[in-house]
């Protein structure tokens, strides 16, 4: 059934269709309407599940870990400060190999308090062992939630579904909401191989000595390697059922492109508009969107980018003291290419704290890059400290 819904509602529908059984969450803007929708689905009997609004995000993820350890399909959602507060348990969920699905609405971290989007909240969780999927449309959000349960339950790793604050979470788009029966065919009920079970008593979360700890961790790494293939298969299977699949990386007009913009999240959709505009001006440009970020599809990236002259990585995030995170990661993916096929790489940081990244911005970035006028690393549309002081004085 086609409906016009927000990105946040798309998350809630995905969770309803996946028949999550325990939902524990804490409100935070701009995530809150996800859990409000779920609370009403549960109250109205559209989803047979327990919904509990706990006393913090730390408790929310702890409750999900408890429920998942008992074999339930679980869900939680959060943003920024909430995700940071969960951090201890984010590690735990992956270490305990629980197939939890969490939706994070990308929001900038405080201080300065901001409710607007950037990617530093989720990217700070990069090394926890979770899988991460960055979405660019409400339809993709719904589809990715359902896919995530399937992948997570196969490889026993948790997944973070990521959507940009407001640009995606609160924007209404047409979404095809699949029938329950179709999703049931795709996603069988959860049957965890190992769970807390009174018939087969076991102790979870025990102390591990140096003679075993590394093996546990190595298995997480192996699971990530397997997960790359599983994401591909699950996405294709979903494509056969619904006609919609997204790939691990999603590219637009790159085959003959000279300069390619690489980014994640909704700026990738904006970039398509910019690319169409620039193609009319005769510039050979394209866009690559990184959708699945963990497991990292480095080989896929290298394949689509090999032979391009230039790649501009647009990061709505920063690893302070180094540079944009997708920039660093892309660079590492391209290092193994033979030198003549290896593109020149530049990184641009833009749109932190929800500053708009317009098609005009992206066109200007690509135009500069095509003429070789972009520094290897730069910040876009940002005041220098002295200009900022002047602007502040002018305000007063």
């Amino acid at each position, binding site marked *: 059934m086609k409906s016009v819904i927000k990105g946040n509602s798309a998350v809630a529908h995905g969770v309803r269709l996946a028949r999550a059984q325990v939902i524990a969450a*804490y*409100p*935070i*803007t701009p995530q*809150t309407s996800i*859990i*409000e929708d779920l*609370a*009403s689905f549960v*109250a*109205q009997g559209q989803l047979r599940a327990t*919904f509990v*609004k706990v*006393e*913090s995000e730390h408790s929310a993820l702890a409750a999900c870990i408890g429920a998942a350890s008992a074999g339930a399909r679980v869900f939680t959602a959060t943003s920024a*400060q909430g995700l940071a507060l969960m951090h201890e348990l984010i590690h735990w969920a992956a270490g305990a190999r629980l197939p939890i699905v969490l939706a994070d609405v990308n929001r900038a971290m*405080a201080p300065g*308090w901001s409710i607007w989007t950037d990617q530093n909240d989720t990217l700070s969780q990069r090394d926890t062992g979770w899988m991460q999927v960055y979405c660019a449309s409400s339809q993709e959000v719904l589809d990715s939630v359902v896919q995530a349960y399937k992948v997570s339950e196969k490889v026993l790793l948790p997944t973070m579904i990521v959507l940009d604050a407001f640009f995606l979470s609160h924007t209404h788009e047409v979404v095809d909401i699949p029938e329950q029966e179709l999703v049931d065919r795709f996603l069988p009920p959860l049957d965890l191989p190992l769970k807390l079970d009174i018939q087969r008593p076991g102790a979870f979360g025990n102390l591990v000595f140096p003679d075993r700890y590394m093996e546990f961790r190595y298995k997480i790494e192996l699971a990530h390697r397997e997960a790359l293939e599983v994401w591909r298969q699950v996405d294709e299977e979903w494509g056969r059922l619904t006609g919609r699949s997204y790939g691990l990386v999603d590219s637009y007009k790159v085959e003959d492109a000279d300069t390619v913009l690489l980014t994640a999240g909704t700026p990738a959709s904006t970039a398509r508009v910019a690319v169409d505009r620039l193609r009319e001006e005769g510039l050979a440009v394209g866009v690559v969107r990184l959708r699945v970020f963990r497991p990292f599809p480095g080989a896929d990236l290298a394949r689509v980018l090999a032979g391009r002259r230039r790649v501009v990585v647009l990061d709505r995030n920063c690893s302070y003291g180094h540079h944009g995170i997708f920039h660093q990661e892309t660079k590492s993916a391209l290092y193994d290419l033979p030198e003549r096929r290896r593109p020149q790489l530049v990184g641009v940081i833009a749109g932190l704290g929800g500053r708009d990244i317009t098609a005009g911005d992206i066109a200007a970035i690509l135009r500069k890059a095509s003429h070789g006028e972009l520094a290897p690393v730069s910040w876009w549309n940002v005041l220098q400290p002295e200009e900022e002081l002047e602007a502040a004085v002018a305000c*007063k």
Partner: protein
Amino acid sequence: MSSLAVNVELPELQNPLMPYLRQDRIPHIWCPGCGIGTSLNAFIRALDEMQFDLNKLAVVSGIGCTGRVAGYLNVDSFHTTHGRAIPFATGLKLGNPDLKVVVYSGDGDLFAIGGNHFIHAARRNMDLFVVCVNNFTYGMTGGQVAPTTPLGATQTTMPYGNFEPPFNLPYLADSCGAVYVARWTVYHVRQLTRAFKEGLSKKGFVFLEVLSPCPTLYSRRNRLGDGVEQLKYYKEKSVVKNGADTRDVGLSFQGDIVVGTFVNRERPTWLEAMNEHFSQRFGDRYQPYGVHRED
């Protein structure tokens, strides 16, 4: 538009309490009929009537509509993270024991995500004045169930009424060891001002609960009318019982409200207890912390 024939020169009028506010932050975000501003007015009046030395005052808030108080007050103020106002304030007090530290925050902030900090600060008798604006809801995030929502009240995450029993906040504070516990509503502006003065003068862990309407979310969702309707409710259903047993002051949906000063007792503060403890142990070798010597 009609225009007046006579041009009257009006003198510049300013509310005498305006200097207590950061005027560059005004207009504030609070909705018409919201009680947070009324509570702040009572607080400012107390400061003014006491001629409180503002250089000795710090106001710490968590996050929420109430949390905005820290940003509007023209004193040293600290807008912290959600739930952590009390630990930030504890550090502030220990770092500069000369300060009077007031924590001003919402019911969700202080008793859901920050609940653990509240009970421990009360237990230690940390020298903090904690003001909770209780509007029975999470105002800032749009009206979700709070640990104070009365049974039966509707909230976005409890669309058919709340079935979780709420905290009785004065009882919680009392049983954890607070030395002063009072509750008023924003209808009781005079008593509230007096309670603020008492709280500012008292040493140790002081707790003041201020019942306050949230017409935009709590009242509307429960069809309780506007801010004025809530004030009428406070007026009609409040019973003053100073010294009441805090076990008996729990609240129910639109039910009776017991207000008053419930607890006022003495107990060494955490810093006093620490100084006493180490002085006994080490005698003159120990130099008490945060105490100014006359020499």
